[in-house]
């Protein structure tokens, strides 16, 4: 039984109020269902509305982003003290190895540059914008994040977003000063990748829980091993080849489960890169048709 102040009793007015508020509630549900159908049929239908909403909350989002990064740093400083000794020795050894590798990589990069210059390929790697992740969806199973750069900064839909460590996602919807990013861990995200050391081609699909499913393109004996690094292959355009994506943590029957190399939670700044679309320039000039007919008598 409802409390006495909410029982309508014989009051006609109170009865009508209750009745109409129920009608309004049911109408709300119907409006919701209609909106839902529209946004499922056309997912970008309300992109402008969402973009405007994200723009409004950009400033507090940025402030908390700074606080979040500082908080992460504080925790890692504390844990760093506990593992300082053993980590120091390990890092020294790794650093020595890395210095040798780096020298070799410099030589390869130099050679690459010369070969590319020979072929006339331009590699403009300047990012469109450098910004921060201001928020991400926390309770939805879809994985979107918001970055603090939008169409005012030259960001357009489809541009890849990466951090220093690797690929994070791609721009899905653009507002004036913010954009919505589809993270690579979302189940709708599909990134063409290859194994860094030998180029085994695969797709990396998000699983929604922070890991990626690596699906091999050539099925057969599974060549993957734990610890394999995958980078973007650049096929299909969109993602520039050679961006680090994930490391294999578990080999499955027909592929592997991989862990993302750049944890979005720990990244301070992200780079928005231009869409990478290799355009094959025609080498031979097309024949001019007008001249052709005049040559024939």
């Amino acid at each position, binding site marked *: 039984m409802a409390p006495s102040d909410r029982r309508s009793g014989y009051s006609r007015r109170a009865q009508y109020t209750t009745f109409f508020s129920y009608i309004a509630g049911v109408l709300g549900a119907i409006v*919701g*269902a209609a909106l839902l159908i529209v946004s499922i049929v056309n997912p970008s239908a309300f992109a402008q509305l969402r973009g405007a909403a994200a723009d409004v909350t950009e400033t507090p989002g940025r402030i908390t982003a700074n606080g979040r990064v500082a908080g992460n740093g504080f925790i890692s400083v504390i844990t760093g003290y506990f593992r300082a000794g053993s980590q120091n020795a390990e890092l020294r050894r790794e650093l020595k190895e890395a210095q040798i590798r780096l020298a070799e990589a410099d030589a390869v990069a130099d050679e690459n540059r010369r070969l590319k210059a020979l072929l006339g390929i331009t590699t403009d790697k300047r990012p469109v914008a450098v910004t921060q992740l201001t928020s991400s969806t926390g309770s*939805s199973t879809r994985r979107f994040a918001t970055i603090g750069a939008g169409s005012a900064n030259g960001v357009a839909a489809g541009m890849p977003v990466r951090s220093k460590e690797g690929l994070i996602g791609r721009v899905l919807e653009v507002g004036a000063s913010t954009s919505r990013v589809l993270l690579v861990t979302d189940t709708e995200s599909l990134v063409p990748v290859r194994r860094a050391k030998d180029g085994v081609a695969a797709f990396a699909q998000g699983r929604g829980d922070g890991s990626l499913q690596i699906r091999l393109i050539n099925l057969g004996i599974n060549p993957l091993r734990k610890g394999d690094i995958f980078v973007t292959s650049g096929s299909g355009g969109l993602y520039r080849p050679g961006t680090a994506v994930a490391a294999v943590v578990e080999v499955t029957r027909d592929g592997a489960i991989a862990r993302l190399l750049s944890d979005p939670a720990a990244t301070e700044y992200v780079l928005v890169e231009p869409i990478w679309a290799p355009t094959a320039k025609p080498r031979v000039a097309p024949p001019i048709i007008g001249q052709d007919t005049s040559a024939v008598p």
Partner: protein
Amino acid sequence: MKAFRFQSSPRDRFRKRINRAPSPLVAHAIPWASIMLGSLVPPWFVIASAPLMPPVGFLMLVAWRQLRPGLLPVWAGLPLGLFDDLYSGQPLGNGVLLWSLAVIALDVVEARLPWRNFVTEWLLAAGLITAYIVLSLGIANLSGGFTAFQIVVPQIILSIFLYPLVGRMVAAFDRFRLLPFRKVS
């Protein structure tokens, strides 16, 4: 719980209450504002790679409806759900539909059930939270995702156990809402 007590000594309490009344604006705005903050603010503090965070806005809506059944109108799910949709990442309309249905369900149960206590309220909230998260998963999958069910199980458990805490938070908001700080001439 001392921090939530706004009047410390009885003497203070009477001095502050005489000739004062709660501000109607604050009293009516706080439920709406707190639910909207529950939808808006939590995603700022963590960039999550898995859906672990409880839907705080929804938990607050249920808590307000259970604490003060008549305060939010039955149609409150429409505007509040729409606001949640703008920031939640779910397809737009998800919140409008499910929040409206949740408010109606709460209202119907509240009108029919002859008694209420902590356990029944929690059980009802747990059922609504589970239904909300599972249906949200289904709607997200309809709109292009392929997320497996087991990924939301930790979120459901976490949300159910966090609900009483959200209830306490809403109770604190409610006490603040009715503080008599407006002078009556």
